[in-house]
Structure formats: C-alpha cells, structure tokens
C-alpha cells in the first residue's frame, strides 16, 4: 500500500488505523543445542483502517495470522513493529494503567462460548466483572442495573432469570450472548469478534450474527469480525480483508470481493466454500498442499508455491497491495497494469 498523503486529520473518521503492523514470535526455545533463532512471522506488515460504525471481516485459514492480529490490536500481544492508532491515539505500546483504561473502549468476543466463561461464576458475576475490575458503578444497585441492561441488550430477557445461573445451565447460544453482554457492559466503541459462531450449531449461528448486526445499528459499534467462513457474515460485513501467511492479500467491499475476487488465493478460497444448492455445483479451485509454515517463508510472493497462475517473476517479487478501485486492493503482480 502506498503511504501517500495519510494525514492525522483523518483520524476523526477512522476509529482504528493500523500501520505496517508486525508480530513475530520466537520459534521454539533457544536451548543449548539449537543454533540461531527463528521467527514465526504471524503478522507481517499489515495496514488496515476502520471507520466508525464499520464492520470489517478478516478471512483466512488457520495460521494466516488473523487471530494474532486481533490479539495484538487488543494489546494482549505486544506488537513487534508498526503502529496502532485508536481514536487518534497511539496505543501500540502502553503501560498497564493506560492499557487498562483502553480496555473499556475495545472489547473482544471469543470463539468458544463453552471455554470463555468461568464455570464457577454466576452469570451476574461474569457480566459485572468488568465493572468491578474498572471500579465502575461502585454501588451494588447501580452495577446490577447495568448488568441487567447489558444482558437484555444481548437478548437474554428477562435478565433476572439468568443472573443467578451458572454457565453450564445455559445453551451454547445463550452462553455466547453472555459473553457479548460481558463485552457490552463496558460500552466499548470497537468489538473484536474472533470466530464467535464457529463452535455453534448452524441453526443458531444466525441469531448471534443478527444480534451483532442489531448492536451495530443501535450503538454504532465498529466490529472486526474474524472468520474462516465468509458465508456467515456476508450481509453483515461492509468490507472484507483476505489474509494469507501474515499478510492481507486482498481487501475491498464485501460485495466486490465476493462477486469478483481478484487475488488468486481469494478466488480459490471463495470457490471451495460450498453453496447449499445442488443446482449450483460450481467449479472449485482446489489448492494442493497445505499452508507453508510461517517460519521459513517462500521467497517473492508468499503464495507462489501453491498459486495456480504463478509465473516465474512471482518467485522473486514480493507484491504490494495494488489499488484496483477506490475501495478494492489486491497484492498480485498479475494485476499490475
């Protein structure tokens, strides 16, 4: 992405600006016997901007870095390089106190509602925990009132009948609503949703997605929605970013990417998502092999060893995102004119 004329004055429009973000992990423990150090390039040079009230879907296979990206944005992992601006402030490196106060404005929803609730706490304890941690609503009545509101906003009505229950007494969908209530109670501006429906039965996925869509309408929350299944968020997300091996390879409006994906990886990824209509059996582009490990990255374009249309130059040139339209970009040298 060319970084021309990006000015700080734009920050009012954007809630989040990510610039050249990198997150590397050391691979293995350097012991007595292993020589040198290797790095896992989990997130490698990612830039992304999110408007207020916008929903962006991050798509990719496991190991593409989408979860690490969300943890880094959340400050649960420290960025190796790059900057993250949130509401105009640099939040890349913060001390504990600053980080804590930021947590009120960025919240996260996790993949597995069975795992993300402490089985020994009641629903009320779970949802009020953020308030207690931040010292908000010190009086019990006030706290209870905010918990009640959060639960009802998350669709658990009447809230009173849920507050004294334990997670194991709820269904998967209800638990995910509790997780959402626990995030809402702090009234965040940005919500990071890490595969929030992939563990749920198909029949109840829609209710969670619809809930998030409603919350975005009513509260103007921005959402980064991490998923491997584009179908689920099709109507909900405004834009989509496709990730491969730590990079964004294509980003654009949802409809643009779904209807005319430009990067060969996006094309393959979309072609293999099954469509529930036997009359629409389509040609699938099945990539062979598996995603290479993010320690020894391929030279040139990271996708070239599996790319069905790769040419000789792909082995040496690492492509940058190329602007295809005002909203649509993809990183492939074949697209350069």
């Amino acid at each position: 992405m060319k970084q021309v004329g990006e000015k700080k004055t734009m920050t009012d429009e954007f809630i989040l600006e990510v610039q050249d973000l990198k997150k590397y992990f050391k691979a293995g423990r350097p012991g007595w016997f292993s020589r040198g150090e290797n790095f896992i390039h989990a997130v490698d040079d990612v830039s992304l901007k999110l408007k207020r009230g916008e929903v962006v879907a991050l798509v990719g296979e496991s190991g593409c870095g989408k979860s690490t990206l969300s943890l880094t944005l959340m400050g649960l992992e420290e960025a190796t390089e790059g900057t993250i601006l949130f509401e105009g402030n640099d939040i890349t490196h913060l001390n504990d106190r600053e980080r804590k106060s930021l947590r009120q404005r960025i919240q996260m929803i996790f993949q597995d509602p069975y795992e993300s609730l402490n089985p020994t706490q009641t629903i009320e304890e779970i949802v009020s925990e953020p308030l207690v941690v931040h010292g908000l609503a010190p009086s019990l009545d006030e706290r209870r009132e905010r918990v009640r509101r959060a639960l009802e906003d998350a669709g658990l009505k009447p809230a009173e009948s849920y507050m004294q229950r334990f997670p194991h007494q709820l269904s998967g969908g209800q638990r995910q609503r509790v997780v959402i209530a626990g995030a809402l109670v702090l009234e965040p501006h940005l919500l990071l949703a890490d595969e929030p429906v992939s563990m749920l039965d198909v029949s109840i996925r829609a209710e969670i997605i619809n809930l998030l869509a409603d919350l975005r309408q009513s509260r103007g929350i921005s959402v980064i929605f991490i998923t491997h299944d584009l179908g689920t968020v099709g109507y909900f997300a405004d834009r989509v970013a496709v990730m491969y091996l730590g990079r964004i390879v294509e980003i654009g409006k949802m409809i643009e990417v779904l209807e005319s994906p430009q990067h060969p990886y996006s094309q393959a990824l979309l072609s293999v998502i099954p469509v529930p209509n036997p009359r629409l059996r389509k040609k699938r582009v099945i990539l062979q092999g598996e995603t290479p490990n993010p320690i020894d990255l391929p030279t040139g374009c990271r996708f070239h060893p599996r790319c069905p249309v790769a040419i000789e130059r792909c082995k040496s040139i690492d492509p940058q995102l190329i602007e295809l339209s005002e909203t649509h970009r993809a990183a492939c040298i074949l697209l350069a004119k």
Partner: protein
Amino acid sequence: MAFQTVEIKPAVPSSPLLGFWRIFSKNRMAVVGLVMLVVSIVVAVFAPLITPYDPQTSAGLTSGDIYNPPSAEHWLGTDDAGKDVFSSFIYGSRVSLIVGFFAAFISIVIGGVIGIVAGYYGGRLENLLMRFTDLLLVIPDLPLIVVIVALTKPSLFNIIFVIGILGWTTTARIVRSQTLAVKSRKFVLRARAIGAGNRHIIIHHVLPLVLPLLVVNAILVISLAILNESTLSFLGLGDPTAISWGQMLNFAFGRGAMSAGAWWALATPGFGIVWVVLALTLLGHGLEQVLNPRLESHHLMPGRLTVQSEAEVESTEKARRRESPVLLDVRNLSVQFVNNGTVAQAVQDVSFQLHEGEMMGLVGESGCGKTTLIMALNRLLPASGQISNGHVYFHGKDIASASEEELADVRWSGISIVFQGAMNALNPVRTVGDQIREAIVKHIPTMTPDQVDKRIVELLELVGITADHKDHFPHQYSGGMRQRAMIAMALSCNPQVVIADEPTTALDVMIQAQILELLDALRKRLGLAIIFVTHDLGVVAEMCDSVLVMYGGVTAEHADVDTIYNAPRHPYTQELLKAFPDLSQPEKRLVSIPGYPPKLDALPAGCRFAPRCPLAFERCLVEMPKQYELPGHHIASCHLVES
C-alpha cells in the same frame, strides 16, 4: 465421537456446591471415608472422656500386669509396661491426626504457592522453581526425613516441620499443571481482555479451579504424612513424650510382644493407622471420582443385545430409487440408551436403503441422533446403548442380530468408518502403516507380508500420501494428512459401504475441499456407497445424491438432494436451509431456528419439532406424525404433508 449428547445427565443443580454435595452423597466410597474420618477426629478430641485409664501412668504395676490379654478390665489387654492398650490406642489418634493435618498444611501451602506461581507466571521463574521441585522429588523422602529427624532432637514439632517441608513436591507439580491448564482456558484470556490484573485473575479464576484438585491432593498428603510419622515413631525417632501408634508398635516389637504372643499389643496400633489412612484414601478416591468423573463406560464393555419390540414391517421404501442394487437396507431401526434405569430413545423407526455407488447425506443439529444411528449400523454402540427394534440388512444378513464373530467379519471389510477427529481415532504410539496393516492382516489373511506392505503403500498413495510416511506416527502428520490416512485405512479391506462421520469438521476450508474431492473421486473409482454425516448443508449439496434429515432421533425428511434443497416439505428442513449461509446470496439475512433440539430423555409427546415449528398446530402437539410417502421416493414426517 460425540456420545456425550446421549448420556443422561443428572438434573442441573442450582449451584456448584449444592451440585457437588448431591453427587458426593451418592458416592458410597467417599461417604464411608468421610464417616470413618469424622469418627477418628471425634475419638481424638474426646479421648479423655473415652479412655478408662490415664495412658501415661501404669500405677499399681506388678510383673503380672505385663502383656495381659484382653479382659473386662483391660479391653485390649496391657502392654510391655502394664499400661492399658485401649487407652494408649485412643490417645494415639491425636498424634497421627495432629502430625497429618499440620504437616500436610505446611506442604500444601508451600506446594500450592510454588505451583501457582510457576504455572501462572511461567518463564524463567517457572523453570527455576520446577527444576528445584524435580531435584527434591527424586531424593527419597523417608530416608531424608529419617536422617534429619535422627540428627535433630526428636520432638513433635520437628517431625511436623520436617515432614511438612519435604512433602510438597507432588503438590507443586500437580498444582502447576492444573494452573497451566486453567491459564490456557479462554476465560482467563477474556479476563485479561476486560483489563483484569494478575492478582484478580489468580484469585477469581485460577484459584477456584485449582482448589478442588488441591483438596484431593491434600487428603493424599495427609495420609502420607500420617504413614511417615508412624514409620518414624516405629523406627524409634518419635517424640518420646507423646503416645503415638508407631511408638506403641516400636515398644511392643522391641520389647518382646512377639515372643509373648501379645497380638493385641501388635495388632491394635496398626489397626488405628489403617483406619485413619483408609478413611483418607477412600475419601480422596471418592472425591476424585466426584470432581473428575470418568465416562460411565468404555469401548470394550459388553454391548447390549438387540431386542425386537415389533413384528417386522415391509420396507418403507417400496420401490427402488436407483438402478443400482441395494447394499444396505435399514428397516425401522430404533436405538435406546439405558442408564440407571432411565431410558432415552435416541433413534426411532429410521428406515433407508443405500444403493451401490450412492452417497447419502445424513444431516441434523447436534444431538439429533446422527452419530448413534451410524454406530448402530455396525453395532458399535456404547455399553448403555441397545438396538431396541429393527433390522440392518447387509447382503441379506441382519447385522442387528448378528453374533460377535459375524460382526467382526462385517466390520471394516463390509462397512468401514472414517471417524471425525483422526488425531484421536488413530493410536498415538503406533505408526500409521502399522495400523493399516493390522486391518488387512485381520480381514485378508491370505496376503503375504510383502503383499500387505505393497498394499499399504498403494493405499497411502491413493489418498496422496507418499510411501516414506508409512512408518511415521500420527503426531508427525498434519491434520489433513491424518484424515487422509484415516480414509486409506477405511479403504484397506475393500469395503462396499463407507460411513464418513463429519470427516472434515475442524479442518480448514481448503483442506476440507481436498478431502471432499478425494472422497468423491474414490467413490466414483471404487463404486463405494457412502453415508456422509455432517451438519454442513453446503457440503451435502455439493457431494450427495440423497439426503436424510434427522430430528430428535426420527427421520424428518428423506429424498434426493434436489428435492431436499428445492422442494423441502418438512418445516425443519425448510428452517435449516434458511439458517444456512449462502455465498451465492450474500445479501440474504439469515434466520435462526428458535429454541433447541429436544433432550432425548424428555421427548415431546407429539411431533418432536412442534415446540420450535413455525407452522405447528394443535395436532402436532399431541400426535406424532407418520412418515408420509410423497411422489419421487420422498418421505416427510409432518402432518401438513398429509393434507
């Protein structure tokens, strides 16, 4: 292979503590242990009220009073100094319990703190602490305790201190690994995400989940401390001023009780030790069962025999749907689970025919009986499961009533299974090639070892795995490769029917596409009939010829794939399709089905889908619909179809 969906769970308790007590009180072992422990504590506390003599004095002693057998005066006789054994025995409980509880307290505190700190903070601190723990762990406990106590002045305080300070190593290890496990759970990440600090997380999230384990471990540590104390006292290292069971034995053994035939002086103190230690052991073991319940059954328990509750009826599918011959003919199959006298109907009256070369999709939400149904086809139900009616004809033979020997022949060479989660379905300590070999040797005994080797390589290459991976272990394979290996294994004995139980769940979309393509190619090449179990309606639409939709253990709808997707008649099928995302219509707002599938031990009286059905009317609530046959070999169980 998710059988837990059909396990009958006890009524949900309102709080963990109450729930704990409810299960605890049902565990006979734990209750007996607790009662025995309470008895010994009561005896120790009220020792002066119970004992007829002062154990310290032996007033009015003559030589005739030594080693007197039990009498009305001395219930358990007298010892080497003419003292009352019963009184000493009662008082001895005090030392055992005091040493046990105090030493264990020291150990648990040290071990608990070290374990939590090491597990939670990790890094270099953890390394240091755990290395230190490992060091102490290999140094034999008792000899070290003996040496230290022998070198210091033997007093109760020293004994407690030494046993306590050396007994924490196992606790530290257990607590550390539990802390690590808790720390990796998502709710800790969630707590960090809301901004909670380490102290808050340790107190509110780690400790409550480590505590149960710590309690079980504490009980073990107490019993070990008691055994150690008695051994020390027996070796003559006890506190000379306190009466303990070990010391009583030391005196009796060392001062001629053996030759005097004074069994009472030898047996009594030991009985005390066994009583207390056994009480703790039973309690600890019972507690462990309560806190960490194992599955009620394992796979080698004898299965229940099939019963036939109704006379056989004609196949519901009267006409052939396809030209090819029928391979598997399932008629009115019902499966129930019997647990502690309660019966859960997991599958009821399911019929279908599978033709050669056909791929049938089996779909439905979790808990709808899909897994139970396919396990029943091969009689692989868990011990509590039972075919309660119906037949599974395979080559004219009824598998439902086959003997164990007949079953062993049909399994794998007739019907094989591609299990979901190949990581768990493959034995981790045997090579993949070896596990394939075993099936071939079992079912094709005529093959020579060389032929078998060649066949293994062929099979692996068939699924796209190179021969050099033959002697690798499952953990050396990637997720996609394991699933391919599972498929190779399933094909190894030339089966005619392959059951694929969610073979692509938990795999990435691209790997899923690879596996699906492979299955499809193999089916065409080998003429296999496949039952494809999945909850992914997209995969079914792309792969299958026919679809059986299950709900609450019954057939909701069964038809060819085009009918199911373009003209479904059962409201459940219709609702499922509305809930399923469709990339070809990205703007479509998805609609979820309100509510949840019924619990199999509390099925509704009428149609099982009625409580969630948008079209339900009165009749649906009281009368279960028949399986109506529609034109085009289309079956739907809905009252609306009748009219």
